[in-house]
């Protein structure tokens, strides 16, 4: 037993280091191997038209703009809605929202975005609109669940101490719900990064453009660069979101 007690913290800290350094290391290795692989290939003119540093940088920027903007819009819409749905007097809304949301999950991302684009036209704004519609559920659901699981005795004692409903919400309920809400935001962000690859079919050239050019032109290097870059970007953003999640969680939780 004594040995276990001694060994446990070491094991623990090693695992923590692995958790925080593992993903950046993996991404660095993947990035370097990708660069090495492309450098050994003799690129023809078609491949060079897609695979050049300024072009690829633009693809990444477009991708991040799409995912970032739509996630911000989703947060601005879904968090207040989730708060409203859990207020007294509107509680009957919550189960309806959850059932509708679960049904909505069955709608495929590709179909939903195509429908939005059909109705709103091709372009950046419509895609953001489609992404918002597709990724609203996790944040909405987590905001509601996060607020609902706050211990009601805490809410009552806050009110008893003389806090107004608004103060109770901002100083007791929301801070306690933050971890769950942040988990929802992270899920929505990853959904948006993934779904933003489909934007190439609707006139925005994010990383999905590189992948699809690779498929259509039958150029393996292009395809691999696109797929690996899109995956790497998603993993990197997920990792950073995890770090932010940890930093934003109120101390004491």
């Amino acid at each position, binding site marked *: 037993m004594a040995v276990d007690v001694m060994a446990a913290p070491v094991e623990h800290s090693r695992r923590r280091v692995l958790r925080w350094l593992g993903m950046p290391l993996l991404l660095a290795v993947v990035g370097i191997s990708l660069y090495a692989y492309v450098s050994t290939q003799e690129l023809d003119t078609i491949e060079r038209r897609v695979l050049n540093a300024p072009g690829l940088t633009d693809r990444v920027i477009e991708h991040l703009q799409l995912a970032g903007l739509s996630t911000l819009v989703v947060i601005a819409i879904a968090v207040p809605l989730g708060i409203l749905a859990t207020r007294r007097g509107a509680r009957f809304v919550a189960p309806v929202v959850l059932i509708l949301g679960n049904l909505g999950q069955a*709608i*495929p991302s*590709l179909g939903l975005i*195509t429908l939005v684009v*059909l109705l709103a036209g091709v372009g950046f704004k419509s895609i953001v609109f489609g992404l918002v519609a597709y990724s609203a559920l996790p944040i909405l659901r987590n905001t509601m669940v996060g607020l609902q699981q706050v211990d009601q005795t805490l809410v009552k004692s806050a009110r008893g101490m003389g806090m107004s409903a608004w103060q109770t919400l901002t100083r007791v309920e929301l801070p306690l719900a933050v971890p769950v809400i942040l988990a929802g935001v992270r899920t929505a962000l*990853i959904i948006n990064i993934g779904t933003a*690859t489909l934007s190439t079919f609707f006139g925005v050239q994010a990383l999905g453009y590189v992948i699809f050019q690779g498929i259509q032109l039958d150029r393996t290097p292009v395809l691999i660069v696109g797929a690996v870059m*899109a*995956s790497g970007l998603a993993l990197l953003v997920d990792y950073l979101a995890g770090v932010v999640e940890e930093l934003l969680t109120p101390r004491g939780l």
Partner: protein
Amino acid sequence: MDFYEYLVDNAEPLSQEALDHIVVVGISVGIALVLGCALGVLAHRSPRLRPPILAVSATLLTIPSLALFAMFIPLLGLGTPPAVVALVLYALLPIVRNTVVGLGSVDQSVLRAARGMGMGSWRRFLRIELPLAWPVVLTGVRVSTQVVVGIAAIAALVNGPGLGNEIFRGLRSLGSPFALNLVLGGTLGIVVVALLFDAFFIALRRLTTARGIR
């Protein structure tokens, strides 16, 4: 042409594509069930392997679907094979996680009692652990299926089978009057397939849950 007319005129190709969709999802989830259960049992038995197994299956779900489909084209070509491989990888996490949770929630005293009755480890697993964990595992399979039904739409982009082709045809004819019917047909078809799978799992759960824990 309104949507209803379109559905009636195209009932045959649409139902064929729906059938293809169901088959490709069924095959993928079936493979993922076997693989995911095996990985879940491994993760349950070995605390050392548990974090890497869960981390890798979570990472797979983070990768954008179009990228994952595309990655297997150089190895497997276009069509059904890269679609099935990518869908299996997407379906793993919920099944693995729920297998670990399900097996972990089996009461240790029940296992000790089984051992006391003289059951070997293999029989204990098949007759006690698996039946008790099964409802949780099945919930994981159901979640996986919902995820995979939607992602399978994107398989059309790598020439995979299913209703995604309908959406993709509509997407290619954006601006033409047929586009809406095509996209709506494919999208609603996929929703119907998802609901059918859900109904199937509700029935399966009733049929396959051990009588004692129903």
